[in-house]
């Protein structure tokens, strides 16, 4: 059973997400070319490279989850631009508020952190279920995380359930008409394409499961 998550494991999560956006960057940009402005992969690669530069050495020097996540949020906000900068940035800034001074998070604290982040995205982007956005991957992912905890699984099991549900949520954006963001100008023409923000959000939750699995 994985009982608690250290700040070092949160750094591993970020590192794993950075690797994922590098690997999937071209795919994310292709999704964005179809219904957006063809820069989602490049923007997240730039942002996560800046994040890993900013948090290098963070574990030994700072130690608090809140300080780490706040730095991540500010770095994304100031390096990404576009719509994904404020959305991912707000996710981590709100997540930082939820974790505060803690240096170790139990499963409930991880869920609270993710929920605060999602609430931040909703406040910033005004997205609702079915609008074909990041929300459509993150919300089912977090619901699955909560259900898994309720049924007695540990934080790793919950994160794996979240990653699976987020991937399903991502795939379920394909037939939707986009109602938010630049894709919404396409109307019916946005049908038949997976939302790039939902795709990167699914990577974010998969990266968490990977980092927890590696931490044992």
């Amino acid at each position: 059973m994985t009982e608690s998550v250290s700040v070092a494991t949160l750094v591993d999560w970020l590192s794993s997400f950075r690797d994922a956006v590098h690997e999937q960057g071209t795919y994310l940009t292709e999704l964005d070319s179809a219904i957006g402005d063809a820069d989602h992969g490049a923007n997240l690669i730039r942002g996560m490279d800046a994040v890993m530069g900013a948090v290098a050495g963070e574990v030994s020097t700072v130690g608090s989850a809140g300080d780490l996540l706040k730095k991540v949020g500010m770095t994304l906000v100031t390096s990404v631009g576009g719509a994904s900068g404020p959305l991912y940035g707000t996710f981590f800034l709100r997540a930082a508020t939820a974790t505060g001074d803690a240096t170790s998070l139990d499963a409930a604290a991880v869920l609270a952190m993710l929920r605060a982040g999602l609430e931040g995205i909703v406040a910033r982007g005004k997205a609702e279920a079915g609008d074909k956005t990041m929300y459509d991957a993150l919300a089912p992912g977090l619901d699955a995380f909560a259900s898994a905890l309720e049924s007695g699984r540990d934080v790793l099991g919950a994160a794996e359930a979240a990653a699976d549900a987020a991937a399903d949520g991502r795939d379920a954006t394909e037939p939707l008409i986009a109602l938010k963001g630049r894709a919404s100008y396409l109307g019916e023409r946005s049908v038949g394409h997976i939302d790039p923000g939902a795709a990167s959000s699914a990577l974010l939750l998969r990266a968490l499961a990977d980092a927890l699995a590696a931490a044992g």
Partner: protein
Amino acid sequence: MKKLINKPEDVLADALKGVSEAHPELRVDHQHRVIYRAQPKDHGKVALISGGGSGHEPLHGGFVGVGMLDAACCGEVFTSPTPDQMVEATTVVDQGAGVLHIVKNYTGDVMNFEMAGEMAAADSGVRVETVVTDDDVAVQDSTWTAGRRGVGVTVLLEKIVGAAAEEGRDLDAVLDLSKRINAQGRSMGMALTSCTVPAAGKPTFDLPEDQMEMGVGIHGEPGRKRVPLAGAAEIAEQLVDPILSDLDFQGGPSIVMLSGLGGTPLIELYLLYGEVAVLLEKAGVQVARTLVGDYITSLDMAGASVTVLKADDEILRLWDAPVKTAGLRWGL
């Protein structure tokens, strides 16, 4: 791709070097990518900031100067600038009377400026108000989209509201006027060709020789529909009709702008304006002031947009007030 550039990733930084060399009346902060007036306005006056992705020049940097903006925040080509740029600019230009942020309605721009407003208020206590322009009639059903896009009316707003701020009106009055200008303006654009974003290296979309995109956005986003290429008289109708059916412009003076999108020569813009003017007169629109040229562009895209603003005596007086910027100058 044939462009007058060194490296695609250096386009903005290199262009800002040129701006500072060419315009001693401007001060360029190359680190934050903000263009300021070299001589700040007087203490006690409201300051105006705008910004957005680059590639729409002269918008916004070309409108920094006496009678218009105090600062312009420059993002990468077609990418919103980031909140730290806007916070820096807001703090620098505030003369104790508050700052108006002028934001075009695009999801990224709106969210980045929103964060900047929150951060500036928290960090420095500067009072920030925001006007979001959304004049593009090509986006029809704004209930089911991110809303109408902010385009040509932004230019007219920066001029008129800039004059009001220069007169010393307070932030509430400046904000009210800016919202009124936005509500009274409508725009519609069309493209003959795509544009080429330097970092992409190839045209954003394919547009066959015999077709044109009606209702195109300023980043090459698709418009209302792709239609067969037509003569200028018919294109003028397709631009003017949706504007006039969206707002009643009769019974008062109007200001009309016909802006090129960057890749259309002035002779064609004037030719098209001749057709637009005939249609406006026929519809009973009284054109009091006119602007024809490249004012809000989309890199090298060929095409044009038409903006009509319902004015009154006060708005015309503010329009005629002195302005001294790289993109607009008269009365000084």
